[in-house]
């Protein structure tokens, strides 16, 4: 599988926002206006960033999600998946994250 290049459009906007809003090198607060954060961004983007909370409302998988955030999966006892992979069904849905 080849990686999809980050294009500068809305398809990869959520991927970009996840990185550019609160990751990166930390600049010392006393020389900086540090303004990365939701209050300065338009409401629409705040809704995009709140996707996690919304997902937990609808998800069957809230327990393992909490567990993952508590410790990386590799550190817990690993068990192999049950069942063997089969041929992909035609028309497999490939998701994209909800854009703004």
């Amino acid at each position: 599988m080849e990686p999809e290049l980050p294009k500068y459009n809305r398809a990869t906007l959520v991927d970009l926002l996840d990185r550019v809003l609160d990751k990166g090198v930390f600049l010392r607060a006393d020389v900086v206006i540090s303004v990365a954060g939701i209050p300065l961004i338009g409401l629409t983007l705040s809704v995009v960033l709140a996707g996690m909370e919304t997902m937990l409302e609808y998800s069957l998988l809230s327990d393992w999600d909490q567990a993952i955030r508590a410790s990386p999966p590799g550190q817990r006892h690993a068990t192999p998946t049950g069942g063997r992979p089969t041929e992909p069904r035609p028309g497999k849905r490939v998701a994209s994250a909800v854009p703004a």
Partner: protein
Amino acid sequence: MTADVAVKQDGLYVYCVARGKDHYPLGPIGLDGQRVYTVASGDICAVVHDRQAEAYQSEDPETVEGWVLTHQKVVAAATEAFGTVLPLAFNMIVLGDENGGGAENLMAWLEEKRDRFTRLLEKLAGKAEYGVQVFWDPEVITTALIQNDPELRRLRDEARTKPKGLAYMLQQKLAKAARAALETRANRCVENFYTRIRACVEDIRVDRLKKTDNGTQMLLNLSCLMDRSSGALGRVLDEIHKTEGVSVRFTGPWPPYNFVSPG
């Protein structure tokens, strides 16, 4: 900001840190068309444009999106010019103060961090960040789980033959059991996929899950650090993508936003 207070003009908006020399021009590619150039201390430079002491703020989401996209384009241009860079978050502006102008403060910061930045740049040379998201289709998986489990299959088949009231109760029982089976399967899949991905990258960060727009569920949202030339991750992702009901989204190369903070 009141009109009679002069806005200081000697701040610098900082995009990233790189190995490079002073006053290298990257062109008018910055936010709002600002000229982007470098400020260096020795061989470590920051990629900047001139900015007054004011954050970029707007109520208009499209404007903010445009700024964020431009920020990333500048970081990409800097990567072209200097190799792997240490990206900063959006809207980091270094101010002037009683000690000096923005440039002086920035150079002092670069000097203070020189050893750390030099080590990081060496560690990240030739590498990039890649995003990996694994999804599954819960309907497909649930159908297969029911089909492959004798007890669940029995419940399903019985519910079809029974009269309405009893059938409803059986379906409720089936749904509850299926949800539990799905959750168990999710745990196993996540462990399995994570372990296989982790084995072929240098470093990894686990990120928050996102809601999707097509009924699938995100199982894993990862940022991976690896050599740009490595094909190992792509091969593992091909295998994972072949798993029934599972799909993979693979993006990159990104500047290493997730691999430049301490700790």
